[in-house]
């Protein structure tokens, strides 16, 4: 009998017991009519070949294991970054269940979001009634300060007009006339979650700056010395925003985060559930118009938003997820230039300590080959950091990165001797990556939780630095931005290197001469 009350076996051990092993064999042999083992082996080997890679890269209709999600996810991320704001997604309700689950699995936090629960009748007649009832219910039940509306693909396909619907809902008394309901159309069949981030943030800025759908006068810009910061879609937001806030404070720069979910996804367990916590207030959004400049930390997460802000007369500095030494230098020099405030010795010291750590450890990373995939800006930041560590970002892949992005990655390769043998792959997925890892193997893989399937199939050790991370806890709490964040990334790269080296030298009397105590 496999199970034992004194030593309860969990699934990973329970099913290895002989009773179950026999059960699996019999099931397969007698009932599954499975493909013969030899044939499976043959195909396994074939998928590792150049021939398979060519066929794999020739596909132009099927996507397998993509590294991107759809627009409304980004819109829900944005809504979570505003004070007492509830995300309201107009369309099918199942989508909302998915966004909430997805974020909760990553952040290990509640994620509030409501749906207008459109069904077949709404598909025929439109979802106006769902909007009218939905806004009324949300408003009276959850008492948000603001309801941020976005759409699922269902509402987009049938052509529901959010501006008109919200106006009608207000006329019907769902919410007060002057109640803030910014909105964004976020069709899932255009772009990805980063496009949704862009559209949703654009919707909120437009609402407050440009006259709330023609119901109040547009705001007049009265320039001040403050700097706005837009982080973009970021799985490490809980750690990153406080780090950027710390940097701004050290530099004595007045600043506003446009979208800050770092408190909402980081509430305490103290006996009270907080449905809303922290976030950018409506007043801050309005005043952000007056800022001297806006830093867009991730270009591809906020392209339209950046344009809108520039059109309102602000300087907009667009970055590509700068990280590491050079990346952080660039960010600090930009905010120093804009504010006219010098970079203080305190930050110089942090920089020095980071460079010190890199100098201590660089020999272990020099020349190591990395494959990485994820959102376009994060890939740019990581590529730059790896290159300055003397590592080679051999395969850089993004499902939602386009040719413009690829050119930027190529420019980074071209600027470094370590980029010589590296290649960028726009609009590709993890099944493409699988081929690459077989035909041109690397030492390490940087990706999200789904990368573990590549680790299993190809034996490439995975470093989790990309959203979503479901199977490791609390990574998101620590920053990867700033010098402090770079230190964290450095340690993660080194940890994986040392773990792999130890695992590779651990066999007694065979390989353990290299199982060194000092490394």
């Amino acid at each position, binding site marked *: 009998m*496999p*199970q034992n*009350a004194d030593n*309860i*076996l969990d699934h990973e051990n*329970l*099913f290895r017991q002989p009773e179950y092993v026999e059960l*699996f064999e019999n*099931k*397969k042999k007698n*009932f*599954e*009519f*499975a*493909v013969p083992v030899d*044939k499976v082996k043959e195909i*396994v080997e074939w998928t590792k070949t150049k021939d398979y890679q060519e066929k794999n890269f020739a596909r132009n*209709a*099927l996507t*397998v*294991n*993509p590294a*991107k*999600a*759809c627009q409304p*996810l980004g819109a829900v991320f944005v809504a979570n970054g505003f004070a007492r704001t509830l995300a*309201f997604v107009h369309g099918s309700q199942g*989508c909302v*269940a*998915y*966004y*909430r689950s*997805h974020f*909760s699995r990553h952040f290990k936090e*509640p994620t509030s979001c*409501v*749906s*207008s629960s*459109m*069904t077949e009748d709404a598909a025929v007649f439109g979802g106006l009634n*769902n909007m009218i*009832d*939905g*806004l009324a*219910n*949300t408003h*009276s*039940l959850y008492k948000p300060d603001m309801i941020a509306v976005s759409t699922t*693909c*269902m509402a987009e*396909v049938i052509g529901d007009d959010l501006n008109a619907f919200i106006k009608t809902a207000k006329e019907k008394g769902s919410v007060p006339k002057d109640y803030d309901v910014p909105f964004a159309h976020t069709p*899932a*069949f*255009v772009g990805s979650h980063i496009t949704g981030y862009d559209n949703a943030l654009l919707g909120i800025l437009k609402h407050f700056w440009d006259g709330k759908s023609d119901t109040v006068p547009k705001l007049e810009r009265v320039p001040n010395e403050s700097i706005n910061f837009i982080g973009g879609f970021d799985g490490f937001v809980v750690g990153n925003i406080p780090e950027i806030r710390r940097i701004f404070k050290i530099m004595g720069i007045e600043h506003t985060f446009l979208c800050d979910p770092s408190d909402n996804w980081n509430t*305490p*367990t103290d*006996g*009270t559930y907080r449905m809303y916590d922290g976030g950018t207030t409506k007043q801050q959004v309005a005043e952000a118009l007056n800022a001297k400049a806006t830093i867009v930390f991730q270009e591809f997460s906020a392209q339209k938003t950046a344009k809108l802000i520039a059109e309102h007369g602000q300087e907009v500095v667009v970055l590509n997820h700068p990280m590491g030494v050079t990346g952080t230098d660039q960010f600090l020099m930009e905010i120093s230039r804009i504010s006219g405030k010098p970079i203080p010795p305190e930050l110089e010291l942090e920089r020095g300590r980071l460079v010190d750590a890199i100098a201590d450890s660089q020999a272990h990373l020099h020349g190591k080959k990395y494959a990485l995939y994820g959102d376009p800006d994060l890939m740019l930041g990581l590529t730059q950091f790896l290159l300055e560590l003397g590592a080679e970002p051999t395969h850089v892949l993004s499902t939602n990165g386009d040719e413009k992005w690829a050119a930027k990655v190529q420019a980074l390769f071209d600027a470094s001797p370590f980029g010589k043998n590296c290649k960028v792959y726009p609009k590709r997925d993890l099944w493409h990556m699988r081929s690459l890892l077989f035909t041109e193997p690397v030492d390490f893989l940087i990706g999200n939780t*789904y990368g573990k*399937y590549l680790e299993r199939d190809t034996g490439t050790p995975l470093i989790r630095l990309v959203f979503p991370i479901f199977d490791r806890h609390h990574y998101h709490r620590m920053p990867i931005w700033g010098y402090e964040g770079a230190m964290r990334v450095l340690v993660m790269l080194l940890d994986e290197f040392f773990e792999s080296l130890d695992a590779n030298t651990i066999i007694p009397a065979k390989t353990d001469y290299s199982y060194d105590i000092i490394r």
Partner: protein
Amino acid sequence: MSLTVEETKARNKELIEEVLKAYPEKTAKKRAKHLNAFEEGKTDCNVKSNIKSVPGVMTIRGCAYAGSKGVVWGPIKDMIHISHGPVGCGQYSWAARRNYYIGTTGIDTFVTMQFTSDFQEKDIVFGGDKKLEKIMDEIQVLFPLNKGITVQSECPIGLIGDDIEAVSKKKTKEYNGHTIVPVRCEGFRGVSQSLGHHIANDSIRDWVFDKMDPEKNTFEGTPYDVAIIGDYNIGGDAWSSRILLEEMGLRVIAQWSGDGSIAELENTPKAKLNVLHCYRSMNYISRHMEEKYGVPWVEYNFFGPSKIAASLREIAGHFDDKIKEGAERVIAKYKALTDAVIAKYRPRLEGKTVMLFVGGLRPRHVIGAYEDLGMNVVGTGYEFGHNDDYQRTTHYVKDGTLIYDDVTGFEFEKFVENIQPDLVGSGIKEKYVFQKMGVPFRQMHSWDYSGPYHGYDGFGIFARDMDMAINSPVWSLTKAPWKKAA
């Protein structure tokens, strides 16, 4: 401290009144019909169910696609399931349900992969049928050992007038009768996951059973053949169930659908009995097999020793003495284990109260397992149950139990806040809300990444998990000591 039945009923009625006050009048009227305190002796729970969720209230429900791709079809391991439409649905449901299986993923099995047609604007405008054809061609090249393909429709498919049935027929012909199943499980259909289960069941009937050539099926049955229906092998549940059925002398010829294969589906009509765990998601195909192939079906419950023993005997009742003796032998064999588990954990869990909100069968099925450990379920409800679920629930719940159908985030929070159960069992969206409140919680969809919970082997894990949730030292730390004193 503990309330009498009448006091409980009064408290629950009061609570229901209280939460309804927060809604606009029209919504309060609608929601009132979904909430009740159970009255002993009634044939159902006197709540409305399986009707549209109210917009804007934070329903916990999902959609028809989730019911088909996520539940029924997704676990069939040797077929490729295309999430047909935009990228999101397949991405969020990718490998999230823990349907365990044995196989070489990407080669002969495909459960934990995300195949999507990743619809772009042009596919919406010009239709996606051509793309779908191309996708099937590419699948046949790159995944030559797949035993079939299903097309899991996302919302746009039904709205733009694509003919996925025609594409499937054409490609089946082109690939020499390869099984290709179009599934009309667009997310806007129906009111929850439930219609997706039904649509998926029907698609097995129409595109698997009805396309089979009986001449070609050489599978030889025995008098002791059964099929496990409605077990998704979450954390290995179907395996820890199968082992018991085999030990009592039965031959399990198919698993629907956890760790299942297309061959197993096809051979199921040859079973002597279908044993049905999740009634909600697979009663449709069970009824069909009864009508068309004369295979009777019986519901069973493998949570907790009391229900397991009763179920083993009930299943054995459909067979001869050999199997009946087998059932007794199995019950006797595992008695020492379950006695030891109960001896160890019951003293730590006795009298603890539980509130549940789950899908499928669990809002009622797990109650027996809690009771085996001396715990009481004081509130329960279904995400997407129908009235026949609430009828079945009457056999499980105690007089006065709070019943909440399609509970909203707001209601659930208020109920738990007031009742202060020792444990809440629900899903990932609810988990952290209640833990923040200091209430121990277990996910009862995914077993909180643990399991199996089915069968005798699973019961030990269930008991251990409930104990560690409730008796974790962390719950004594939620209040800072300098605030505790007051």
